[in-house]
């Protein structure tokens, strides 16, 4: 373990308001390199908003976000005091890949093109090289026979695996997952979780919002329980699941069972 490395992600007192609604209240969290952190919590507790704030799909109201030790956001009243050159900011954002609940594959592109489109156009990687990388990734998620198919011809589980390959193609250092299996039929959940477990085994840093408690228990290094926009409890899977302290966490775990 290289403890000298800066944390992959660190947030300090992140707050987010939608109008007068306070969705995130002083969220301070750290994801170390190589760590798998799972966020659990009831609906509306701000899990998605927090994850989406990290890669700027949402703009936080106040607080700090560090990516590998570099300050990306230092906001007050929504205004960022950090003025990074655009190129540098994009480089930081590209360290994060994201997988969405509803996949959001590009329907007008084949599986292969879904995976190559960003490397070719954003990273300017030559097409042949991008396709080579994409084929390897598609193979890794077990969909080699589907490279030339359009997303509409795939099951939800297959689409989500392509979405994972698509995010990996940008060679991120951390993968953000927002309930990657919640939109899937129960029988398709396993194949996506299997890919994610493999990814964790291969050493990928992962930040996962999930309702799959067994996944969190098995894979997570750290589990975060969010409640009403706050980090209510944080600990190892054993601490969180076998010895919960926060009253709301106990209730939450009872309800889920």
């Amino acid at each position, binding site marked *: 373990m290289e403890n000298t490395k800066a944390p992959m992600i660190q947030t300090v007192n992140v707050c987010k308001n939608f109008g007068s609604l306070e969705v995130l209240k002083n969220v301070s969290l750290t994801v170390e390199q190589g760590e798998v952190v799972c966020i659990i919590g009831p609906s509306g507790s701000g899990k998605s908003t927090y994850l989406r704030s990290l*890669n*700027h*799909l949402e703009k936080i109201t106040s607080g700090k976000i560090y990516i590998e030790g570099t300050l990306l956001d230092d906001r007050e009243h929504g205004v960022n005091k950090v003025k990074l050159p655009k190129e540098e900011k*994009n480089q930081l*954002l*590209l360290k*994060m*890949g*994201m997988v*969405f609940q*509803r996949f*959001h*594959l*590009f*329907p*007008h*592109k084949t599986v292969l093109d879904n995976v190559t*489109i*960003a490397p070719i*156009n*954003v*990273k300017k990687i030559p097409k042949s090289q991008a396709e080579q990388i994409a084929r390897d990734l598609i193979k890794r998620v077990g969909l080699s026979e589907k490279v030339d198919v*359009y*997303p*509409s011809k795939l099951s939800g589980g297959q689409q989500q695996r392509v*979405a994972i390959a*698509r*995010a990996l193609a*940008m060679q991120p250092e951390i993968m953000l997952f927002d309930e990657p299996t919640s939109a899937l039929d129960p029988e398709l959940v396993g194949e996506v979780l299997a890919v994610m477990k493999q990814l964790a085994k291969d050493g990928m840093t992962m930040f996962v919002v999930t309702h799959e408690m067994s996944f969190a228990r098995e894979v997570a290094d750290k589990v975060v329980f969010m409640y009403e926009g706050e980090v209510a409890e944080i600990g190892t899977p054993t601490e969180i699941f076998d010895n919960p302290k926060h009253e709301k966490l106990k209730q939450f775990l009872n309800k889920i069972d």
Partner: protein
Amino acid sequence: MSEFWQAISVNFDKIVNWIPVLLKSTGTTLLLTLCSVSAGLVVSVFLALGKMSKLKILSKLCSAYIFFFRGTPLLMQLFVVYYGLPYMGITIDSKFFAAFLAYAMNSSAYLAEIIRAAIQSIDKGQLEAAKSLGMSYPMAMRLIIIPQSIRRLIPPIGNEFIMIVKDTALVSSIALVELSGKTKDIMIASSSPLVFVPALAIYLLITGVFTFILNRLEKRFSVYE
């Protein structure tokens, strides 16, 4: 009804002789429609993106343009370009060009709203996915959003085209000869309404062929569904 068919058969030769004359003025109708819809289409993409822009001034300007051209009669717009602009020091000698300008500006406003609606109908998750892969807004528009909008654009663009084909009849008011105007001339000269028969047939042929082409295009762009 039988009188109608009798009139047609008695005047069959006459009708056949009108056809080449009508077709000649159909050229103006078609050319005016194709030119103004094409130009309108190009302008409308910028208008639509402009109206959706976060830049307030740009958005307001585009909205105002669209509001003006959708909120006033095309005939008046034609008059303003042909009769009004000379007072502002801009004289347009060619009637066809004046008509083209008015029709292109008018259709660009309608097409801009069509394009905006199509773009906004695309799931916003598409833009988020594109952003999360490092694409800038313009790149996401070009590679992800606009290509998906095209299929949804084809039917309403077809409607706009058909509207313009029919609205070209208005240019007779600046004495530019096209199919409807020619039909009226022949009707007066021949003191017979029969000329409507080939004229209407020509209109239906144009819109029919166009509808056919658009249906094919729509299928082509739907391969991924």
